[in-house]
């Protein structure tokens, strides 16, 4: 007798339950996978073991310095091929004391997505001054990265001993910048003698004995920066013997008085000599063209980058350079205060530069933000330089008095369409971009060597955030690690032109962002498709080297040729 369908086809209850459970589990897993793959960056701070926090010394005195610190650097200090991370702490103020002992942090990359704080062991955990930023480079060309830490009322140079430790050689080197509130710093070889020199942007005359009295909405608040008188730049010439000479006066930089912050050293006019672009806070920005004789000429006015279009000196904080529109000429971003917009300037062979702030949509995207760290990088390796920005206000009272401006502000990840028009990728950038911070410094580096640029940023009086890039591998890329011989070993000042169907121009710049230092390797996104890659390297000392048929999806370590280069045979 045939059973009815009712009796034979109906599954038993426990089977139904199992099927339902499996279906749900598969659906959940798929959803999770889809969500994870769509997130551009993942916050891995906690799983990386990074527990350090910045301390700004917040106090009733409302010293402006309390709002401005938090430097960070990607640095491979032990030459194991993995980028480590150095965080600069702030400091205590007369009435702003830390409940715990203050310390910088040097997180050694263990290679498995984990990091370990070895600052104490390395001898870079303590500062005798209030810390601000960090500039990393091999100043003595011994193959190991050294650290210059800025601050008030002094700065310090830590020489890498090549054994995992550092020695404070500030006094011996003569780079203390004593008595000054130093903010940004950048290594660059201004005289092309093969040794990296150092530019320090000093901010303002300041003393913990002189708290200023300002109010916002009847509450004691941080004063406007114009309450503080600016300072001149400090330029140190590397003598090549472990010492430096202060050439501020000789170079003319001692006359450039203003509230200096972010600095980037890059060849603006393509004459092979590094120039300087300095963001200043309510002082006109500086565009210092290298005159090849140890002096610089400020052409910011002629370039129309000193002030905004109306002649107002904006509150410039962070700065970066990169070829945003693909014309082979460096372009610049400068972060400013709320209602000023972060600025975007297209560089030009002839002056003036173009102010592309509104047309790029940067104006609309940044109107309500106070910006600090800024970095051009190609997050998705499509060949177009994108932009990440750190934001965060200084006055908590703004939450009461402001309408659209808030104290904590989100970071921005902006995708470039190739012509310098940016799109906010907030919705897919990752959970870290859905939160708001008192964002400050930002550094970019490929800490897991997968060809995807990662990021780390600091927050005022809070923990940093380490972001792992998830999407770059979808496109092809090529990486360069340069080693100078006649040029400075880090090859700061090199220009790399990559051709692979399209042409991409990149530089190894000094400085960039705000109080930060970055991975010195150059990552060039190539987009989709596999095409041969050629590259022209213009080394800092002027030698031009041409390379053909380079393999993508790997880093190429290149050593500066000692003599005129031979053309590499094309590979069949």
């Amino acid at each position, binding site marked *: 007798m045939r059973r009815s369908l009712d009796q034979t086809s109906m599954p038993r209850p426990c089977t139904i339950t199992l099927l339902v459970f499996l279906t749900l589990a598969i659906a959940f897993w798929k959803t999770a996978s889809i969500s994870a793959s769509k997130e551009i960056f993942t916050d891995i701070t906690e799983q990386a073991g990074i527990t350090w926090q910045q301390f700004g010394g917040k106090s009733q005195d409302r010293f402006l310095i309390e709002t401005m610190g938090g430097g960070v650097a990607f640095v491979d200090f032990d030459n194991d091929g993995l980028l480590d991370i150095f965080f600069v702490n702030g400091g205590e103020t007369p009435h702003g004391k830390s409940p715990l002992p203050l310390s910088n942090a040097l997180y050694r990359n263990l290679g498995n997505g984990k990091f370990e704080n070895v600052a104490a062991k390395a001898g870079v955990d303590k500062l005798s001054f209030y810390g601000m930023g960090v500039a990393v480079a091999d100043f003595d060309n011994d193959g190991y990265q050294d650290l210059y830490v800025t601050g008030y009322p002094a700065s310090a140079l830590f020489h890498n001993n090549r054994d995992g430790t550092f020695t404070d050689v500030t006094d011996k080197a003569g780079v203390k910048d004593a008595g000054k509130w130093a903010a940004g710093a950048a290594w660059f070889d201004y005289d092309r003698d093969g040794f990296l020199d150092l530019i320090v942007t000093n901010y303002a005359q300041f003393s913990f004995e002189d708290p*200023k*009295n*300002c*109010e*916002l*909405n*009847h509450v004691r*608040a*941080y*004063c*406007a*920066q*114009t*309450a503080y008188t600016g300072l001149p730049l400090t330029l140190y010439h590397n003598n090549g013997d472990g010492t430096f000479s202060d050439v501020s006066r000789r170079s003319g930089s001692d006359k450039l008085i203003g509230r200096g912050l972010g600095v980037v050293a890059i060849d603006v006019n393509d004459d092979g000599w590094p120039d300087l672009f300095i963001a200043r806070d309510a002082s006109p920005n500086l565009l210092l063209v290298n005159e090849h004789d140890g002096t610089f000429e400020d052409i910011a*006015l*002629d370039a*129309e980058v000193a*002030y905004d*279009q*109306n*002649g*107002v000196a904006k509150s410039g904080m962070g700065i970066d350079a990169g070829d945003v529109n693909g014309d082979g000429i460096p372009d610049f971003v400068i972060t400013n*205060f709320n*209602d000023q917009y972060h600025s975007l300037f297209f560089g030009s062979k002839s002056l*003036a530069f173009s102010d592309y702030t*509104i047309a790029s*949509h940067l*104006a*609309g995207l940044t*109107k*309500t933000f106070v910006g600090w760290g800024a970095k051009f990088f190609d997050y998705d390796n499509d060949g177009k330089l994108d932009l990440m920005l750190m934001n965060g206000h*200084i*006055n908590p*009272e*703004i939450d009461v*008095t*402001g*309408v*659209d*401006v808030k104290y904590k502000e989100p970071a921005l990840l902006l995708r470039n369409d190739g012509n310098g028009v940016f799109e906010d990728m907030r919705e897919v950038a990752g959970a870290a971009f859905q939160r708001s911070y008192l964002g400050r410094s930002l550094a970019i580096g490929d800490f897991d060597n997968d060809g995807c640029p990662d990021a780390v940023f600091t927050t005022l009086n809070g923990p940093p955030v380490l972001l792992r890039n998830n999407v770059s591998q979808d496109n092809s890329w090529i990486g360069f690690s340069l080693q100078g011989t006649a040029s400075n070993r880090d090859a700061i000042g090199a220009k790399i032109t990559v051709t692979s169907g399209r042409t991409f121009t990149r530089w190894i710049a000094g400085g960039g962002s705000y109080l930060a230092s970055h991975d010195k390797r150059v990552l060039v996104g190539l987009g989709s498709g596999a095409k041969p890659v050629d590259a022209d390297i213009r080394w800092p000392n002027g030698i031009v080297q041409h390379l053909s048929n380079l393999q993508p999806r790997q880093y190429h370590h290149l050593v500066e040729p000692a003599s005129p280069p031979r053309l590499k045979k094309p590979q069949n």
Partner: protein
Amino acid sequence: MPRILFLAFLILMICSFCAAQSTEARSHADRGLELAQSGDLTSAESELREAVKLEPTNPEFLSTLGTLLAMQKKLDESTTVFRKAVQLAPSDLKSRRYLAANLWQLHRYSEAKRELEVILRQQPGDAPSRLLMGMVSENSGDYATAAKMLSSVPQEIEKQPESMAALASSYYHLKERDKARATLEKLASLHAVEPVQLAARIANQAGDFEESERLLNSISGTAGNSPDVEYRRASLQYRAGHFAQCQATLQPLVSSPAATPQMYNQLGWCYHKLNKPKEATESFEHAIALAPADESNFVDLIKVLEAHDFLRVGLDAANRAAGLFPKSAAIFNLKGSIESRLSQFTDAITSYKHSVEAQGSSSEGWLGLARAQVSAGLIPDATSTCTTAIERFPKDARFKVVYAKMLLNYVSPTDRTAGARAERLLKQAIANDATNPEAFFELGKVELNNGRLTDASQHLERAAKLLPQSSQVHFVLARAYRRLNRTADAQRELETFQRLKKGKSSENQEGSLTDEAKP
């Protein structure tokens, strides 16, 4: 035969009637004149109205009625009546002169002039008409005719200080300063305080401060230094720009029992001009204490505090005033202005909304509201406010400028027409008001950014002429010149920009009670 007799009778009756009417009208008119002479103008008017009613085409009655109405300041009706009289009796030059006098008092100068021209064509030497023509011409800015007419009737003008003042004013406008001073000398020789003050005011208005001061000093220490006179003297000194002297004149007055709120108020303005904000504040507070119901002292106090960048103190005063005068648009406008400068945009928007509710017909509240909304990033609200305000105040260029700036600076990525709309608005603003520097400035910047360099430089030059103290305008003009390769011009403008900027930053560092926080 009987018909003829009847007709004759009828005619006789009519004539008798008319004669009776005429007689009655005449008696009304005569009675009216008697009453007028006795001072009872109201009854006189009634009698003359009766006379005119009975004989509506009698120019004599009409003229007399017109005179009576003018004596009672019923100028419009008087003018109508005189017009009728003149139409009926065109050769009646006296009535025509009275008509002209009415029109002059009604500020209908061109009509007055036409009537006087008729008189003077027939009687060129008619002194009263020449005098009146002189006054009309002075009022309408025809100073050459005014001087010619007034100087031709010296005996007439000596009887009327205002006409001597008008002659002096005309001479000043014609750059004949010596003649002006001579005329004022004659005016002052009348040896009364009011004529001397009038003379001093004329000299002051013409910018002849030396003469103004001399005239004022001539009545100092005489019977003319009663508190009221000294106060007026101080006012003239203030208008002459002699602020220290104004303060010196007022100081003993405010220390005396005769002190008035007006004196304290004037003293406050003197201190403001002397850059003594603390003293200015004290003076205004005294004025407020003496006249707590007078809103104007609060308004002046807040204005001065804001001008000296004492924003926190100014806001306290504005809050105090707002509590006392909750319907004062002026006070809420000032409150909103200070709140905006402190970046307290939420509060500023509330204040300006109060102002608009209190006095929606005033454009200042609407303008402040739009600007505050833009600053606060409330673009849809600001758009709505600007649109409404442009409809309400179609000739006020400022709203078009605010709207245009918003379109230029807060462009939505999807709005491709914003730039063109902004440019259109700026051109409309310039058509509304060719003296609005901001319209020229913003239009110049748009053209500069679009590569229309010649147009840009022209508009920016105009902005610089209208607002020579603006560092921004000179900066942008330098940019335009630079792009036009006019290097020397660019350098000059840049130097001007740097000089103005330096002056402004050093001003900001002085006179602050507290530093301003970073908002």
